[in-house]
C-alpha cells in the first residue's frame, strides 16, 4: 500500500454493502414485531377477545347446566356439547378479524405508514413480514383461546348432562378447525385493512360480512342458487370447520381450502394495491 492511497474508509467501494435479502428480511421482521408489540389497541383487542370467549363459553355452558332440567326432551336430545360449547366462535371471529385489520389500519391512521414505507421501499416485504407475524401469533392465540374456552366451558357441563373432552376425535377436530377459522379470519382482516386503509371501514365490512349477511341469506329456501353461493360465505365455511351439523354446508377439508383461497385472493389484491398506490 502506498502512502498516497486514501484511507480504506474513504474508498468508494468501502461504503456499507447493500443489505442481503436475508438481513433485510430479518430487519423488517424485527421492526414489524416492535410495532406490533407496541400497539396498545392490538393487545386490548386480543385480551378482550380471549376474555370474551372464555366468559361467553362459561356463561353459555353454565346456563345450559342450570336450565337442563327445564329443557324439553327434544331440546335435550338435540343438545350437542361441542357445538354449544364452541358457539362463542361466532363472536371470537369478529375479534380476530379486527385484530388483523388493526395491525395495519392503525399505521395508516397515525401516518406511521409513511415512515415504514420510506424505511422499506420493498412494500411486498412489509406485507409479508406482517402476514408472517400475524399468522404465527394469531394461530397461537387462536389455539389458546379456543382450547381454554372449550375446556372451561365443558367443565361446567356436569351431572347427567352430556359433555365432550379433547380426546373425543370429533371435539379435537372441532377445536383445531375453530382455531384455523380464527387464524384465517385474522389474515383476511389484515388484507382487508390493507385494502381499505381505514379502521372504521374495515371493521364495518367485517361485521357486515360475518354477522349480517349470514342472518339475511342463511334461512332462504335451499334452491340450487343458494347451494352454490351461501355455503361459501366465510362465516359458513367457518361453521363447516367447527360445527358437527353441517347439513347443506361444505365438508371441512374443502371449506378450509376455500377459506384459504379467499385469504390468498385478498392478499393478492392487497399486494397489488399496496405496490401501485401512494402510501
Amino acid at each position, binding site marked *: 500500500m502506498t502512502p498516497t492511497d486514501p484511507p480504506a474508509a474513504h474508498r468508494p467501494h468501502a461504503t456499507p454493502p447493500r443489505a442481503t435479502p436475508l438481513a433485510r428480511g430479518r430487519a423488517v421482521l424485527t421492526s414489524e414485531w416492535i410495532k406490533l408489540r407496541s400497539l396498545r*389497541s392490538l393487545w386490548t383487542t386480543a385480551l378482550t377477545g380471549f376474555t370474551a370467549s372464555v366468559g*361467553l363459553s362459561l*356463561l*353459555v355452558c353454565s*346456563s*345450559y347446566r342450570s*336450565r337442563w332440567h*327445564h*329443557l324439553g326432551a327434544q*331440546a335435550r336430545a338435540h343438545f350437542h356439547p361441542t357445538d*354449544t360449547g364452541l*358457539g*362463542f366462535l*361466532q*363472536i371470537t371471529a*369478529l375479534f380476530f378479524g379486527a385484530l388483523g385489520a388493526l395491525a395495519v389500519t392503525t399505521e395508516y391512521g397515525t401516518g406511521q405508514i409513511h415512515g415504514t414505507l420510506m424505511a422499506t421501499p420493498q412494500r411486498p416485504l412489509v406485507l409479508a413480514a406482517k402476514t408472517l407475524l400475524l399468522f404465527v401469533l394469531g394461530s397461537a392465540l387462536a389455539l389458546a383461546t379456543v382450547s381454554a374456552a372449550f375446556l372451561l366451558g365443558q367443565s361446567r357441563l356436569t351431572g347427567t348432562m352430556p359433555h365432550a373432552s379433547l380426546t373425543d376425535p370429533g371435539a379435537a377436530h372441532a377445536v383445531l378447525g375453530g382455531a384455523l377459522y380464527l387464524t384465517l379470519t385474522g389474515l383476511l382482516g389484515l388484507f382487508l385493512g390493507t385494502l381499505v386503509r381505514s*379502521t*372504521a371501514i374495515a*371493521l*364495518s365490512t367485517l*361485521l*357486515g360480512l360475518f*354477522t*349480517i*349477511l349470514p*342472518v*339475511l*341469506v342463511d334461512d*332462504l*329456501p*335451499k*334452491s340450487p*342458487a*343458494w347451494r352454490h353461493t351461501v355455503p361459501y360465505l366465510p362465516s359458513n365455511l367457518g361453521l363447516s370447520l367447527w360445527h358437527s351439523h353441517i347439513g347443506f354446508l361444505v365438508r371441512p377439508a374443502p371449506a378450509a381450502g376455500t377459506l384459504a383461497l379467499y385469504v390468498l385472493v385478498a392478499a393478492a389484491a392487497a399486494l397489488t394495491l399496496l405496490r401501485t398506490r401512494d402510501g
Partner: protein
Amino acid sequence: MNPTLPAERRHSMPTRLRATARSEWVKLWSVRSAPTVLAATALVIVAGAFVLCSGYRSGWASMSASEQAAFDPTFTSLRGIELAQMLIGALGVLAVTSEHGTGLIRATLAATPQRAQLLTVKGLVLGAVVWALSTASSFAAFTAGRHLLTGPVPHASLDDPGVLRAVLGGGLYLTLIALFGTALGALTRSTPLGLTTLFGVLLVLPLTAGLLPGDLTDTILPYLPGEAGSQIWHVKPPSPHSLTPWHGLSLLTLYVAASAAAVLTLHRKRDA
C-alpha cells in the same frame, strides 16, 4: 320587540336555531362520506329486496308448509334494512366523532356555546335527512318486492293490515338508529369506540343471546334495542315472545332517549 335593536335580534331563539341548523346542514353534507353512505343505504335496502325476494321465489317449492305459512312478504322486502342500519348507524357516529377527530368541534362550540341546543339541532338535521331517505327507500324496496314475489309466493299490498305501518316503520327504525349512533358518538367521542359500541349493541348482543338455552333467549332477546325496534317493520311477529310493533319501537326510543340524556348531562360538563 323593537326591530332596530341588534342586541335583541342576536339573542332571539329562532334566529339562533336557524343559524345552528344551517351550519349543521352544511357540515353534514361536507363530510365527504355522507352522500356516499346515504346513496349506499338506499342501494342496500332496494338490493336486499331483489336478492331476498328472488331467493324465496326460486326456492318456494322446496319450503315446508309451516315455513310457507310463516313467510312475511313485507318483512322480506324490507330486510335490506338490517344491512343498511350499519351504514346509517355509522353515519350517526361519524357525524359527531369526525368533528372531534379534526378538532372542528372547538370552532363549533365557540360559535354555539349552547351545547344542548347544538346537539339537539344536529340530531334533528341528521334525523330529518335519514328519515326522508330511508322512508323513500322502504317504499321502493316494498314496491320491488311486490313485483318480484309472483306465482305461488304470496305478496302484500299496502291496504293489508299492518303493511303501511311496517313500510313507514322502516324509515322510523333507521332514523332512531341514526340518532342512537349520534348519541353513542357523542358519548365516546372516538370513531372506533363509537362504532364498536353501536355494532356491539345492535349485532353482537343478539348473537350472544342466541347462544343461550332457548327459554333464556326468549326472555332476553325481545328487549334488546335492535330486536325491539325491528318489530315495527314486521307484519307477522317473528316469535311468540316478540314485543308488539309499537311497544318495540317505544322501547328502542327509550334506549335512544336514555343515551341522549347521558350525552346532554356529560356534554355540559366535559371539555371539548
